[in-house]
């Protein structure tokens, strides 16, 4: 029941923001802040519940209510350690998204925060839905408000970017819908029980070719979201044009729904088909790592640059998931978390720079360390996180993924490891263009304000803590090593 409350708080908070802003525009941001904070508190409060849970059963909260019984649709939500971690990430980044929009958004604030909160609600729903109909429903809920965020509050080329984002993800969604329906009917014909319930559908017996085609429906939707090369093209545009909070949510959370979907649905429902396609997916992942890094190196638009680093880092997720190694799987979860934090922080940084310099072009920056020593210091930490420096969370993630992959697929793992060199190259270039060299910009810039400092400090501390104390996360998602038969070995 508590999970329903979490969703309702966000949905209601969103509506409240909209209504309140009619009278008092500034009230909306406070409502939004309180709403997301309340959810974060609830999510934190679930920690002891999880700890106290007696047996190994990974689902420590499971709630089911009838929704459309005639079609076998139920309101089934459940929480395990993996979903729980993702919820924490969602609300943590959600608060930061509200905070970073504090002054940036001046028009239609009520509707803005409505969209922000509804996106968050959609994302939370995706992470806890255990009914495929509900899952698809939430998948769409997070898409439309995000589309509005980009098209209404975005930058100059926002229309192009928003439509591109919408078309790409919608194309994937439709394939997924077909796959869900196929699964629904096959399962219904086999058992006579027409249901969208995740746990029931897990038992569906599929012929190899049906399994492959159905799986592809899911997989394509998820890899578009992830995004994997060659479906990544929506990302740089969407990231580049979205408002700062939009980029933060995109990089930090929306991409993660793709990774989540693969782990939660593709592997357990289609174990054999997933194993069959695994080498290709690892190949795509490796291609993404290298290709994304090469593109990141050549960008001059700061936000596009960071977007391409995301493509590169999410390649690691694909490699890790399909290497069917328990170590790599833990690494994937770490990557989901730490990439969300570090790349989110980089986008926030880009937003802060844009607010001051009114440009995203790094050739017009340079020498900013002198005038912004605080941001410079933070930037070092964040670029190093992106470059996978040990003691920071991203290292644990990439180290586990590569280590785990190496025993199954040494050659591709080695090529992926070369991504570490490339990540150093593009990270240093970014650092250098923005912060080093002689001061180029003539606009006087001020260093971080207290609010900005709090945002970036919170993120930096989380990255360091995850790097030095990753064990709690590893323990929480330990059960993921049972989701696929190959992982046991």
């Amino acid at each position, binding site marked *: 029941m508590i999970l329903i409350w979490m969703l309702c708080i966000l949905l209601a908070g969103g509506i409240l923001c909209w209504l309140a802003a009619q009278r008092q525009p500034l009230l909306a941001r406070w409502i939004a802040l309180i709403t997301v904070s309340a959810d974060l508190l609830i999510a934190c409060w679930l920690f002891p519940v999880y700890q106290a849970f007696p047996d190994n059963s990974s689902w420590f909260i499971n709630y089911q209510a009838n929704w459309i019984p005639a079609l076998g649709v139920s309101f089934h939500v459940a929480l395990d350690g993996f979903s729980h971690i993702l919820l924490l990430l969602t609300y943590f980044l959600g608060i930061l998204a509200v905070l970073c929009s504090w002054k940036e958004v001046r028009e239609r604030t009520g509707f803005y925060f409505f969209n922000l909160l509804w996106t968050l609600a959609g994302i939370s729903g995706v992470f806890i839905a255990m009914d495929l109909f509900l899952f698809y429903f939430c998948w769409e809920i997070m898409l439309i408000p995000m589309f509005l965020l980009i098209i209404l509050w975005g930058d100059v080329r926002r229309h192009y970017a928003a439509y591109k984002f919408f078309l790409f993800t919608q194309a994937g969604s439709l394939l997924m819908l077909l796959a869900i329906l196929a699964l629904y009917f096959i399962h219904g014909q086999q058992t006579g029980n027409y249901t969208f319930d995740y746990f029931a559908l897990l038992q569906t017996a599929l012929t190899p070719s049906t399994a492959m085609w159905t799986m592809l429906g899911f997989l394509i939707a998820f890899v578009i979201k992830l995004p994997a090369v060659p479906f990544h093209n929506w990302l740089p545009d969407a990231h580049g044009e979205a408002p700062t909070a939009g980029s933060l949510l995109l990089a930090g959370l929306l991409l993660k729904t793709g990774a989540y979907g693969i782990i939660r649905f593709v592997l357990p429902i289609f174990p054999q088909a997933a194993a069959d396609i695994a080498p290709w997916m690892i190949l795509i992942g490796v291609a993404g790592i290298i290709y994304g890094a*090469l593109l990141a190196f050549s960008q001059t638009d700061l936000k596009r640059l960071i977007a391409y680093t995301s493509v590169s880092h999410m390649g690691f997720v694909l490699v890790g998931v399909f290497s069917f190694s328990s170590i790599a799987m833990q690494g994937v979860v770490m990557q989901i978390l730490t990439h969300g934090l570090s790349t989110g922080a980089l986008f926030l940084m880009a937003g802060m720079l844009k607010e001051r310099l009114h440009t995203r072009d790094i050739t017009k920056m340079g020498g900013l360390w002198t005038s912004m020593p605080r941001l410079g210091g933070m930037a070092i930490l964040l670029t190093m996180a992106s470059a996978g420096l040990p003691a920071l969370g991203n290292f644990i993630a990439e180290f586990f993924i590569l280590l785990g992959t190496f025993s199954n697929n*040494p050659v591709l793992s080695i090529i992926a*490891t070369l991504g570490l060199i490339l990540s150093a190259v593009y990270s240093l270039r970014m650092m250098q263009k923005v*912060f080093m060299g*002689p001061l180029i910009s003539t606009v006087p810039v001020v260093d971080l304000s207290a609010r900005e400092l709090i945002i970036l400090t919170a993120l930096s501390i989380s990255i360091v803590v995850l790097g030095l104390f990753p064990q709690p996360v590893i323990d929480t998602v330990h059960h993921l090593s049972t989701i696929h038969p190959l992982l046991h070995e």
Partner: protein
Amino acid sequence: MQQYLYLIPALPLAGFLVLSLAGRYLSRNFIAGIGAGSICISALITILLSARFLQSPPETGAYTQVLWHWFSVEGLVSNISLRVDSLSLVFICIITFIGALIHIYSIAFMREDRDYARFFASMNLFVCAMLMLVMADNLVLLYLGWEGVGLCSYLLIGFWYETPGNYRAANKAFVITRIGDTAMIIGLFLLFKELGTLYIPDVLARATQHFSSGADGVTLIAILLLCGGMGKSAQLPLQTWLPDAMAGPSPVSALIHAATMVTAGVYLIARMHTIFELSPVAMQITAIVGAVTLFVAGCSAMVQTDIKRILAYSTISQIGYMFLALGVGAWSAGIFHFFTHAFFKALLFLAAGAVIETLHHEHNIFKMGGLRKTMPVIFWTFTIGAAALAALPLVTAGFFSKDQILWYAWSAGGGHPVLWALALAGAFITALYSTRLILVVFWGEMKTTPGHLPSRVMTVPLVILAFFSVAAGWIEWPHNILHVDLFSEEVQHVLPATVLKEGLPAEIVFQLIAVVVSLIGIYSGYSLYYGQSPLLQQWKQSPTVMSVRDFFFSGWRFDQLYDALIVRPFLFITRINKSDISDKLYTAIANVSMLLNRQFSVTQNGSLRWYVTGVLIGILFIITLQLLL
């Protein structure tokens, strides 16, 4: 004592945290107190610890301390935990002791700098990272220190980040060492796959059981680890970052070259000695890399004009000696050379820094000259350092360590006459350029008027280092002269003893040859650079000599080679694909849809005749189709 182990790296770390978070609000004196104080206390603890260690060695041969559990996942268990045995002890002594002296020196040297706190914060972190590297009990933690060192070198080489040359050098250092690091981490993956552990004592114990000598797996691992070492220790072919690393302030160079960073590779190989011993091929490669590097870098050092570049190339060359020693199996000799080299190289860099500072940031030695009288303390300490570098017999520490290596280059199990010859040539070159350096900088006429002379805060560390540049050698004498081998005895608790070949001439013959060669080198330097040498003038006229000189001067054109082979193709590929070629596919889909849209919307023109025609054609089409099928 064991329970205080953590303080050694923790104090510099605390210094870093305080200075980086609150440095802006602190006075200069306070910053200096924290920055240098943290390392000094760390050094004191190290000295106490070593005294205890030497008096009553722990039963297991090592002090250990587990700080916290880092992670454990599917058989890979790593703790943040420290382990200090004899080998680590040598390294932490050098790191903290020389680090402390460099920090004290920096108090005065960096006094006027705008970013005083940032400087000390980075320096403290550097020392901390290096300490983690040598104190780690597992390879993941070692890698943490390893990368941390890379980060700090980046921060410090690019310390004056406003000048393009400086940040380029910093980027170069980071990227090139990262290439080595990546090879190393692949080595770790392979090690874990084969042995199922990355805990160093277990790795060493299991390696002997798991691998037969000369097995492919172990050779591959050893070579990958060696690549990591080559990156950090600036060995061929990954040496090109070090000469450029001079862009940082002089104390940074001293720290990089003496106490931290470049010795990391030496440590790694010594630490993983079992793996290397199992693979004769990898040992050979190590020795060859060392020998070639020491020669190549020595040649370049001979012709440089920038005082710090001379020293940089000399470091590459001296680390080459260490690699050579490790490669031929003379483990303790390699570590001993690291030990003595740390003193005189730190001394040389700090003294060079003082010279440069006094001469208003003049780096070119040919614009110096005549400083013997005006800067006596610097002159004497620098000369002692250079003499140690040149391995002046019996009175300098450099002699004792280098003499051993020369002897073992032939006589040790993996030795070979060619290696010996290269090492001997290197010894000649080293003596030559050391002499050149001293004569050009301190003799002759004064070409730049000195400014403020260095204060006592800067000269006292120099004197201390000069003392050790002489005395550090006395703890290990050649066997045939005096039976004192305190150093190798201690280190051989961890490292295997050197095995000698049979049937070689007596050691004394080799020693005499080495002494004579060094002396000839010094004499050649003297005759070429003391006053006006006609031979030198003659060479300057000859195009062949000058092209060889240019070749050496450019560091054997490695930079140009990499530029052509790697950098330019990389830049080209990234530049042509800046707008992402794969986007064309989707733009094409969009364009085709637009085109079709335009074509079809023509048909919707509101004309009834047109529609009727359309309907009729459609009916005709369907009927034809039905008739045909």
